[in-house]
């Protein structure tokens, strides 16, 4: 196309701002028509530069009407406008087709906060509850476990975070963490590993009694879900 006329290489701005429409010959106007019409078929054709010169081949360029030769600006604007509107439509159509993949309303509603009663959990024990499809570990830590968690120097940790920042003030014995290994999503086993915390059997990540990563491939500490103490013996997760 490049060799045949300006039609195919015009930009939108060219089309909008060119004032002198009359200078084009009948031939290039017809070639422009064939080329710009195919603009709508996508950049592939323009890129390959092989739009057939239909009018040219068929010897039809003479048929070009006076009006189209006189007002190429208006015609180009038409092509660009049509292409733009069609593209907007195509883009708008993609939205619902992608949006439907997000969690549906019932899933979102089922992800509402849950309340957990802590009274049955004895010191040194832990339970697993599910919130939003994820296992949440609630550990009732012993004095020893808390001390272990606080004895370590924070700056030496791979993901430095103090134990105080991972529990609620005044409720030091309760550790609430999302039981999903931050490496690749397996569920670590509680009370295992050399730090008395969690051990992930998949790839050997070891977490301490505060759920912090101490050894292995996991990059960060076990996540603490949003939760609050409704009373001393009841928490709300979410």
């Amino acid at each position, binding site marked *: 196309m490049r060799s045949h006329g300006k039609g195919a290489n015009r930009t939108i701005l060219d089309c909008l701002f060119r004032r002198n429409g009359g200078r084009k010959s009948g031939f290039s106007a017809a070639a422009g028509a064939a080329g710009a*019409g195919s603009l709508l078929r996508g950049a592939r054709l323009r890129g390959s530069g*092989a739009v057939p010169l239909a009018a040219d*081949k*068929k010897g039809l360029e003479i048929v070009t009407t006076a009006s189209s030769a006189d007002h190429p600006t208006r015609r180009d604007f038409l092509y660009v406008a049509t292409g733009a*509107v069609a593209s907007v439509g195509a883009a708008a159509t993609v939205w619902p087709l992608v949006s439907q993949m997000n969690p549906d*309303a*019932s899933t979102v509603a089922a992800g509402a906060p849950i309340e957990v009663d802590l009274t049955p959990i004895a010191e040194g024990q832990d339970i697993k509850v599910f919130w939003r499809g994820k296992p949440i570990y609630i550990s009732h830590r012993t004095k020893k476990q808390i001390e272990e968690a606080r004895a370590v120097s924070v700056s030496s940790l791979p993901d430095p975070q103090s134990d105080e920042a991972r529990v609620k003030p005044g409720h030091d014995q309760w550790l609430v963490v999302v039981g999903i290994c931050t490496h690749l999503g397996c569920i670590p086993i509680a009370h295992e590993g050399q730090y008395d915390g969690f051990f992930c059997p998949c790839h050997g990540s070891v977490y301490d009694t505060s759920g912090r990563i101490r050894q292995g491939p996991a990059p960060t500490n076990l996540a603490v879900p949003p939760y609050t103490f409704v009373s001393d013996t009841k928490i709300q997760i979410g």
Partner: protein
Amino acid sequence: MSGPSDFQPTNPALKWIERRLPIMGLMHSSFVAYPTPRNLNYWWTFGAILSFMLVVQILTGVILAMHYTPHADMAFKSVELIVRDVNYGWLLRNIHASGASMFFFAVYIHMFRGLYYGSYKEPREVLWILGVIIYLLMMATGFMGYVLPWGQMSFWGATVITNLFSAVPYFGESIVTLLWGGYAVGNPTLNRFFSLHYLLPFVIAGVVVLHIWALHVAGQNNPAGVEAKTEKDTVPFTPYATMKDMFGVSCFLLFFAWFIFYMPNYLGDAENYIPANPAVTPAHIVPEWYYLPFYAILRSIPNKLAGVVAMFGAILILAFLPWLDSAKTRSSKYRPLAKQFFWMFVVVCIGLGYLGAQPPEGIYVIVGRILTFLYFAYFLILLPLLARIEKPRPVPNSIADDVLAKTGGKPAPMVSTVIALMVAGGLLLGGAESARAAEGSTKPPAQKWSFSGPFGKFDRGAMQRGLKVYKEVCASCHGLSFVAFRNLAEAGGPGYSVAQAQAFASEYKVKDGPNDQGEMFERPGRPADYFPSPFPNEQAARAANGGAFPPDLSLITKARSYSRGFPMFLIDFFTQYQEQGPDYVTALLQGYEDKPPAGFNLPEGSFYNTYFPGHAIKMPKPLSDGQVTYDDGSPATVAQYAKDVTHFLMWAAEPHMEARKQLGLQVFVFLILLTVLLYFTKKKVWANAH
């Protein structure tokens, strides 16, 4: 597909690929340089429209399959959850469901076009037969897709159609058992239908490739029916045909969108909003409109095997068309007799479609037999005969001559074509619609609803009052199991706040569990919970209600309908009237008579209702004046209660109705703009060729 291409990319990377896999050359020669006759009219755009529809159906179908559960106990509910909970689920479902009808609508035009212009004649026989195969595959796919929502029509349609195979001598019963995977239509049937419904569209796509290949080898037929001889007879596919096709698709989209956004249930059957019940067959089993002509042929033949053979024969006979019609002239334009008989044949087909929806009794059976005879006579007697006796008019020497002869004459106006199509389609649909007539009942008066029409919105006050009526009266017997408390606070709903919905939910006791002790327990409702049903199961409900089963009200306004009759159903298409359900429910609630009319034998334990089909209803008069207290000063009358609770139930049946109509308006503004632009673009592009 049309021989070696001289296409050569300039980009080195593309050149590298092209040398190893000449795919760009293939695309270029097939869809860019491909010579297409200059004189094609708009009937030829239906090929592109069909390709477009196939893509739409596959795309929406694959997406719907992500959310659908093919299990007899869950299929119906999963479809409802798609519509209610999945983002834009209602849109995708409407597109897919009415898309099936649009697909058939377009294929029928495509087929009649081929018939009229002799597109099946030498050298296009294989092209035509591939088309017949695609049509058969489409029918199978459409049928199995209709089974998936697992409503009453799904279930009984599956039963009736699979039973067709029981007509096969000796092996019939075994074949049917094989198809079902059980002793009756059931979960295995649903599962395999889902699997095949997913598979067949891709088979169709494969055969479509062959169909286009064959088309590009033989070249397109055209209205003149003479082959393209010189370059003057053709124009390159791009931009000429592509622009014209895009304009055609855009016009078709306008028609399509009318169904998607404004009349989504016009083509469906209200009965299919009732979950499948193997114990009760609906009063009228009617297939989807696109099968009706063949259904009429099936019923016209009094012998079971002969009926099934005739029905399949009516489709398969199309494959033999190239040899049945041996006339040399292709286009009916130049065949004065064939042209008239063609239109008569169209009328016969529409007539059969109309009859397929009527009850098989009286005059309908006789007319059905006559039309069935005429259908076969057209192919077996008339076409062979015409080829021998008809004297065709001279055809033009070339396509270019045909075009020149036409210049100066007016091009066929698209608008009148579209209207003619709509009317013809409407007539067929009307046939389907009138079959839903509830016999022995009075037509409910049409009410004014704030939610009707293209700009319809729900009335929040009416919905809140209606919810109160439901809670205080209806809920003692009827469930509302697809509606969750959270829905009460959603946009387009009764307009409660999240806190209000939460408070409303906490007034209910919801069964949950098991707890740590393994026991079920009751707790206050949460927004995510659904309205609890008053009875634990159907047996308990029947035991408590004198043997009758109070239906769940979640979908009642969509699951009930009545016949509007001719010509109202046609007018309804344009006025977007689709409130048969609400009209019926309101009328029913007010339609109780203390004393049945003289001569009416009211069964024990029933009550007389003017609007109930058969008049004997098991539900006692539910509402009386003053029964529910309104806080907003609305009259505490039965009429007001009935209207309010129906208003609420309409929302319960379609919680996204407001969103549907709003998006519809935006889509229409956009589509009209696009269509106008495409029209002028197409005109400019074609200015050189005419």
